[in-house]
């Protein structure tokens, strides 16, 4: 089969040269390299794939910095399994096309064992095909909508179901049942809103309006027009990025009162409140697993250590950075566990790390937000969501923290699709489907 295909092409395209090289692969993948992913005596290479330039750099540059900070910390403490970690940092330039180009460079050329990267779902989906085709391992360290069930991505940010579980009942209890949903116009806000509706129903709340603005859109008057008509008890916001800042500024200009109708957001963190000015942010609520002001020794060490290091130029820590920081430690523990299973570091493959990552725990001594662990079925993270209220200095005061860890459920609102397990999506008809995107 292979030979005949080759002969055919040879005639058609490039004649005898093909035979000269003996190029063994045409439409089929290059046979796997025999070389090990990690070489004894060398360094362990990991990919760092965020945007350092362009409009996404605002957030993703911090992600790069915090990954480097975590790796420095790990190396200073003896590395992983006695080996030093070497980050391969690439710049995705805020361009979706470049994400897909750079991930293939990391996997195929640089042969990193795992990659940390991405802040937007779009970038995750752009890298997913090759990550899955090469059975690689990708750590996606931020909020995420779920509904996927892949065997090559580990997520260390909160899922939609983890966000809403505490926030919605809290808001309804304190401000009233009527909610107006405002989000950026893409999938994550829509999924988050669906989860929010599930919880609203349970606590007797009611949706009085739902609106989406384009990404980067900054005109909220038409929406506030409808909000004024509906008189909701609070606004539930999944508006991201620059739009989020415009939302808060225009909220203030429109004369809404934060004690009457506050915004409960899944996105407005320390970076955003600083950029919108203190008076625009103060009084609103945020659901996140982490706040810079959390009071525990680990967080104190993390904030002080990070801000004092050469990576801490941004001046704040926030939930996205902390989740990224955690992902590096999740990976570290994964490699160590895989080594224990395989016996030889040269035997360790990306997929092996992923397969042993279930139940891996990052303890109080490392995790600034407190103990977290990876779900053994769907490889998302167990965490304690918290609710913070923005103060006049742009920092958040934690006013409610979950007592128990909340489990991640990527299929929470799609039970009819099946259950996500380690080996794939177990569909209702009994079949198992892998790589569900």
């Amino acid at each position, binding site marked *: 089969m292979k030979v005949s295909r080759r002969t055919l092409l040879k005639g058609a395209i490039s004649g005898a040269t093909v035979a000269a090289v003996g190029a063994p692969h045409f439409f089929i993948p290059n046979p796997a390299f025999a070389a090990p992913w990690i070489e004894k005596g060398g360094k362990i290479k990991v990919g760092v794939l965020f945007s350092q330039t362009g409009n996404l750099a605002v957030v993703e540059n911090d992600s790069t910095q915090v990954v480097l900070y975590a790796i420095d910390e790990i190396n200073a403490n003896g590395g992983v399994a006695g080996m030093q970690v070497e980050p391969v940092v690439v710049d995705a330039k805020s361009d*979706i*096309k470049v994400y897909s180009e750079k991930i*293939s*460079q990391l996997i195929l*050329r640089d042969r990193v064992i795992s990659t940390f990267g991405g802040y937007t779902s779009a970038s995750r989906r752009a890298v997913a095909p090759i990550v899955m085709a090469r059975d690689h391992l990708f750590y996606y360290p931020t909020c995420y909508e779920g509904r996927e069930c892949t065997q090559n991505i580990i997520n260390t940010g909160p899922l939609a179901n983890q966000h809403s579980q505490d926030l919605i009942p809290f808001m309804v209890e304190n401000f009233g049942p009527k909610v107006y949903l405002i989000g950026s*116009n893409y*999938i994550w806000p829509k999924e988050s809103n669906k989860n929010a509706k599930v919880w609203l129903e349970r606590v007797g709340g009611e949706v009085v309006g739902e609106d989406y603005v*384009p990404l980067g859109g900054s005109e909220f008057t038409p929406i506030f027009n409808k909000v004024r008509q509906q008189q909701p008890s609070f606004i539930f916001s999944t508006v991201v990025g620059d739009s989020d800042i415009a939302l808060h500024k225009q909220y203030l200009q429109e004369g809404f009162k934060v004690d009457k109708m506050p915004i409960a957001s899944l996105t407005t963190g320390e970076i955003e409140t600083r950029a919108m000015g203190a008076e625009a942010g103060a009084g609103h609520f945020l659901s996140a697993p982490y706040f810079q002001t959390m009071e525990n020794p680990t967080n104190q060490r993390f904030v002080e250590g990070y801000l004092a290091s050469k990576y801490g130029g941004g001046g704040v820590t926030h939930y996205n950075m902390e989740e990224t920081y955690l992902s590096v430690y999740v990976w570290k523990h994964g490699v160590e566990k895989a080594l224990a299973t395989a016996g030889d570091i040269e035997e360790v493959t990306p997929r092996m790390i992923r397969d042993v990552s279930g139940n891996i725990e990052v303890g109080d001594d490392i995790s600034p937000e407190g103990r977290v662990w990876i779900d053994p079925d769907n490889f998302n993270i167990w965490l304690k969501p918290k609710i913070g209220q923005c103060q006049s200095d742009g920092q958040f005061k934690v006013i409610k923290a979950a007592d128990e860890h909340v489990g991640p459920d990527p299929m929470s609102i799609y039970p009819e699709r099946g259950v996500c397990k380690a080996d794939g999506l177990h569909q209702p008809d009994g079949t198992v489907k892998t790589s569900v995107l």
Partner: protein
Amino acid sequence: MNGNIYHNRKAQWAIYLAAFAALALLPIFFDSPFTLNLLARYCVFALLAVSVSLVWGYAGILSLGQAIAFGLAAYGMAMTMQMQYQDPVSDPIPSFMLTNELETLPLVWAPFWSTPIGLILTFGVPTVFFIVFGILMFQARVAGVFVAIMTLAMTAAWYSMAYDMQPFTAGFNGISPPLPFQIFGTEVDPYSAGAYWVCVAFLAVLTLGAKFLMQTKFGLIVQAIRDDAERARFLGYNVAYYQVVVFALSGFLAASAGFCWVLIVQYVSPTSLEIVFSISIVIWAAVGGRTSLLGAIIGAFLVNGMQSFVGDELQQVWMLILGAIFIGVVLFLPRGLAGFFELVLGLFSGRREPQKSDWNTGRTSAVTKESAE
């Protein structure tokens, strides 16, 4: 112009053939799947630049809408590949549709169950759209700057559409088919030499076809229309007809690029329909030389290659350099690198052909002529 070897047709064909042969042979030297895939991406960009060179350089229609054809084809291809992954019984709809409460496959997706029909739509829809859009514009004798702005607005409209129609397009997240393209019982791995050769073959065949076409009388008339549409009209040519044909051809080229793109990247999102992307294509062609198809290819390889390699080294200042290059090319090399070669080769042949490039001013120069008279 006899003396200048740049204008010698035999020499031109020799150079073109040599260039494509070299591209086809590259896998010998770069066996790394990453490099092959990267080069294949450049070939796709080069094909886009060729489509701009055809429509702008030869026909004088500055289209900022090439991304429309590219994006539509890319969506078509991604939908074809996504449906190859779906199963009619156990998993009949792509999972992103669930977010939007779709329970059955929407009508626009249904034809993509069949790969041949999917492929026909991939190439057909953008081409037909360009024919319709072309008729709309050129029948009304829209020209020059207005073409640029109308295509720009149309690109923005399609972007909003792809972005907003989330039940059908997955919106900003885009569609990433989980498996590579399957055809004739084979899987086309995006990182294989085969996938690379598919891209090179598309680039070579379509470029050579365009080159041939521009040397026929059709090409001559197209260039005549670029110089003075009214004159051509009074010589009995249906100018709008010619413009629609060229515009549709360039749309087909851009659509082919979109097809190849998803073949080797397995992903599409509304960014493929972005204005920024659409203008970048024009810039590649401008850098390489819009009046030369090979020049456009070189421009695309050069700018994107620099972006991949130099861009990483110089990170923060890279965009400054890129911007400066564009300005420099427009100011000092209006015909791009190809024009520069033409000039240099002209010097060697002992006769210097003055560079004239005011044809693209269209109306302005017509006005000047009148007032001068």
